[in-house]
């Protein structure tokens, strides 16, 4: 094994254990936002900051903390998935995604990016648990935010596939293309999830691992599409037949 490869594997290794996200993976994912919050706080403490700059830094602390808290909440939900009772019901994903866009817009704007929902003329219903589905889309959106180019718009899309039997909710980012090697790794891991899914090098893949767990709990699955200018991460769920009965 080359020294470089050894280091890379050491950095990423041990992330998952026995099919469950490890403490190492969680710690790694939480280290980045905590380190940023700490750096900003120390800078603010030093006092040599203009009012406008201080306001901007406080906003960054607030939004970074919210993002980290979402991950801790997802981790808790993921760990209790097998024990917890949750309902699946017909859901209009359009409304749910509009709420997510509304919630995430301040974070995206603060990063110089946008998030939008591609509107549909005809409503679609799917079978899901509202909380788990929301967490999946939030997760994909957080992932897209990290990767989307400056000033670009991340688009949440809802489509019927498989002759209308499946509803696909995708989050499309416009950034650097995934390399072929990275894509092959991602495809093989997504095909056999739930397990470690290294979406992108800077990530331990914990977020996507959790998303795959949530999707599986609703009899769905997650996947990814590679574009020349970014990627789409999606969740496929069963369509509800309720609309056809109306």
């Amino acid at each position, binding site marked *: 094994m080359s020294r470089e490869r050894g280091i890379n594997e050491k950095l990423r290794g041990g992330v998952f254990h026995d099919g469950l996200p490890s403490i190492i993976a969680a710690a790694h994912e939480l280290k980045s936002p905590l380190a940023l919050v700490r750096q900003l706080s120390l800078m603010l403490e030093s006092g040599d900051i203009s009012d406008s700059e201080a306001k901007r830094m406080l906003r960054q602390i607030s939004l970074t903390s919210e993002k980290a808290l979402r991950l801790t909440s997802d981790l808790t939900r993921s760990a209790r998935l097998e024990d917890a009772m949750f309902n699946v019901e017909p859901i209009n994903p359009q409304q749910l995604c509009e709420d997510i866009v509304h919630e995430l817009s301040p974070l995206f704007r603060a990063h110089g990016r946008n998030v939008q929902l591609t509107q549909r003329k005809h409503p679609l219903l799917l079978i899901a648990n509202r909380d788990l589905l929301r967490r999946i889309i939030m997760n994909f959106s957080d992932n897209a935010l*990290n990767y989307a180019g400056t000033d670009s718009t991340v688009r949440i899309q809802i489509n019927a596939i498989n002759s209308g039997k499946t509803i696909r909710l995708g989050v499309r980012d416009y950034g650097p293309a995934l390399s072929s090697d990275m894509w092959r790794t991602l495809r093989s891991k997504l095909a056999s999830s739930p397990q470690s899914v290294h979406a992108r090098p800077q990530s331990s893949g914990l977020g996507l691992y959790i998303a795959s767990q949530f999707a599986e709990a609703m009899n769905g699955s997650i996947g990814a599409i590679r574009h020349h200018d970014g990627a789409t991460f999606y969740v496929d769920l069963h369509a509800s037949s309720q609309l056809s009965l109306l």
Partner: protein
Amino acid sequence: MKTKVLVVEDDKWLAEQHERVLKTDYEVKVSFSAISAIGDIDDFHPDVIILDVLLAGNTAFTLLNELKSHSDIGSIPIILCTNLASDIEMSDVSHYGVKRILDKSLMEPGDLVGAVRSVT
């Protein structure tokens, strides 16, 4: 003439923070990926590179290998600034020109200036 520092960091707000700390003493440019850093090194001619390890697109090793393969830029001192500092041995990366390893989660803002000063 100020020493030029290239910060390679994919977290936009952390990059902004590094720039905030360094800009009083140094001329600073930020690259958000290893690939863009390669172009920025050609244009900016940095005296020091501050490099995160796990970057969007490619890890720092893409950049380190690229730098190592060019005699004219291979001697630029590199400071790794990473949350994975405890997993990296200096002996494993010194041959890439890495002079210092800073732990993002433990360092004080002033440590960045101190590290640059120590390698120039």
